[in-house]
């Protein structure tokens, strides 16, 4: 296929995916899982190879795209083993390191922030991260200022850049050699999850809701800008892809608690990202039935919601499918244990329920499982082509923004030492100041994002 054909294919896929998210007419339902674990292991790689060997990982993805060319977007691994190792990150167990090479990575929850440390977090989130949180969560930084800790910071920065290059290279090669867009780029957390995942942990946060509710609320508010900043720092500069937000702890809350503790700061974070020209792909973990009506409060077609296995996709379609595009509908167990006939029937029913006026991308409960039977995945695609084709004559072109134009940002990029401060230190500048400033700020922005990635 010529480069021109590849570009045409890329535009067609991206246009279809973007239109579906925006609830605009499409020629057919896109095939675009938020996360496709199946693609990682389809060609026989171990789960360890995916996170430790970028070449093997990319080879696996390309083989997958060749065999399933109907795919419209692909995104799978998001974890770099070397980056975690460089600083001794304690929040995940990794395949091949702490788990069998064929087992998936797993999150390990612990209270890295104590119940009486909210004031410190609220007063200065950056200082709290740097001085309190990171030395606890990154083993190699346990003794700040030591040679080992300083070297770990250095290695961590280098590994971060290295992983960034891996992701960029992967994105470019998938685009140029396979015509394949990404399902999403960049990520952030709901502020409540930022506290409840790796800071206070589930138990700690649940107790805080009863014992010190005000502090928890204020902490969530204090993290809004940090989450917006992190999301924007790692997002696609061309604004082609949605930014990912995996939600984790909402499912444990009563509707009242959700409205009090979870939603206000989450909504504000999403509004600021939307205002900055991005769409969002939200994984609604667990049963969001009691809460998903809140997505009606955000502009139409701005947040694609992945409905988990426990959620009722048909109810979600009824409740919010006219306002936001949904993804999901095929239970993980059906991909793993079911038959192609059962998958086909499920897709048929889902397409009928969505009709022409509700947004739906058929997917697993957030991800396509590792142990998916290939014939079931094929059956899903065939059935989507059969039942999810609306108007084959429709040609869609993608929206791509020029990063040079900048565009509106709801928030200036955060830095530890901004340019005016540095400028003052430098005194007279003899050449092109902008050239120096641009590079200074680029590294500052990345370093700032580096600090916050450890909440993810």
């Amino acid at each position, binding site marked *: 296929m010529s480069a021109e054909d590849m570009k045409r294919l890329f535009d067609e896929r991206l246009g279809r995916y973007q239109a579906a998210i925006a609830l605009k007419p499409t020629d057919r339902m896109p095939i675009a899982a938020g996360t496709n674990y199946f693609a990682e292991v389809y060609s026989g790689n171990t789960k360890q190879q995916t996170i430790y060997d970028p070449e093997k990982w990319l080879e696996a993805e390309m083989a997958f795209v060749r065999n399933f060319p109907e795919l419209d977007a692909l995104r799978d691994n998001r974890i770099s083993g070397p980056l975690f190792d460089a600083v001794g990150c304690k929040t995940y167990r990794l395949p091949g390191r702490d788990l069998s090479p064929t087992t*998936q990575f797993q999150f390990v929850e612990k209270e890295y922030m104590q119940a009486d440390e909210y004031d410190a977090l609220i007063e200065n989130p950056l200082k709290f991260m740097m001085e309190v949180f990171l030395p606890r969560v990154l083993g190699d930084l346990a003794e700040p200022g030591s040679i080992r800790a300083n070297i770990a910071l250095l290695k961590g920065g280098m590994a971060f850049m290295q992983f960034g290059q891996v992701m960029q290279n992967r994105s470019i090669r998938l685009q140029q050699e396979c015509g394949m867009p990404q399902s999403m780029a960049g990520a952030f957390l709901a502020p409540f999850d930022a506290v409840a995942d790796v800071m206070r942990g589930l138990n700690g946060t649940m*107790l805080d809701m009863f014992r010190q509710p005000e502090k928890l609320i204020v902490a969530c508010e204090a993290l809004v800008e940090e989450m917006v900043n992190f999301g924007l720092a790692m997002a696609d500069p061309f604004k082609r892809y949605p930014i990912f937000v995996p939600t984790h702890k909402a499912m444990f809350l009563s509707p009242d608690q959700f409205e009090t503790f979870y939603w206000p700061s989450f909504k504000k974070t999403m509004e600021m990202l939307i205002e900055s020209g991005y769409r969002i792909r939200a994984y609604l973990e667990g049963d969001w039935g009691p809460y998903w009506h809140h997505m009606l409060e955000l502009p139409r077609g701005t947040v694609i919601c992945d409905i988990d296995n426990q959620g009722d996709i048909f109810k979600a379609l009824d409740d919010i499918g006219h306002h936001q595009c949904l993804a999901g509908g095929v239970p993980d167990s059906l991909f793993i244990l079911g038959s192609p006939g059962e998958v086909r029937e499920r897709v048929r029913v889902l397409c009928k329920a969505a009709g022409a006026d509700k947004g739906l991308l058929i997917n697993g409960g957030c991800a396509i499982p590792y142990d998916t039977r290939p014939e079931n995945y094929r059956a899903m695609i065939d059935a989507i082509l059969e039942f999810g084709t609306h108007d084959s004559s429709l040609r869609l072109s993608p929206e791509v923004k020029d990063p040079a134009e900048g565009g509106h940002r709801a928030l200036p990029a955060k830095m530890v030492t901004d340019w005016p401060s540095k400028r003052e230190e430098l005194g007279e500048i003899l050449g092109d100041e902008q050239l120096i400033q641009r590079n200074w700020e680029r590294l500052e922005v990345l370093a700032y994002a580096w600090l916050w990635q450890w909440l993810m």
Partner: protein
Amino acid sequence: MSELAHALRDLQEQKVYALVDDMIGNGVSPLTIVEECNQGMVEVGELFAQNKYFISQLIYSSEILKAVMAKLNPLLENMEKSESAGKVVIGTVKGDIHDIGKNIVVTLLRGAGFEVTDLGVDVPWERFVKALRESGAKVLGLSALLNFTYPEMQTVVERVRSADLQDQVSVIIGGAPCNEQVRQYCGADYYAKDAVDGVAICKRIYG
């Protein structure tokens, strides 16, 4: 329902502690205090079943209970145990290290008077069989969060069935990736859709 059971049901943490301290001071038998707390926990489970409480309230109530038991445990030593509702062995299957759901089930089971052997996470089939043999429990609970555990759950069920425990043990599966299709695949006897459902199934088995 006693005042203590009421206070625990209503999640009045400080009131629960004050009442327990008073009761201990007044020489009330620790077994009576445990019994009243268990009544409160049963009510909490009931409110959960009615969708009036959510997981956060279950976790909070179990934390309060934990603090009460820390006060009572020294007093309960050397005392005869109250009558058991039955024995249950439970754990998260091999490969999976998640335990939020399992821990909630354990708290509710203990609150309902069951003797629970909690094997923790990443439990291989051999440990399940050994614990069943040693405890004589008639119920085995298998917990999982990740969907790669289906074959492992199937293995545990097969091994339990082929051990010398034939027809004695009922296996319940639960957790996010479980459903009726998974139950059939694993050969388990029951699928519990949530923690309260799991306790109800244990009660039926021992009923």
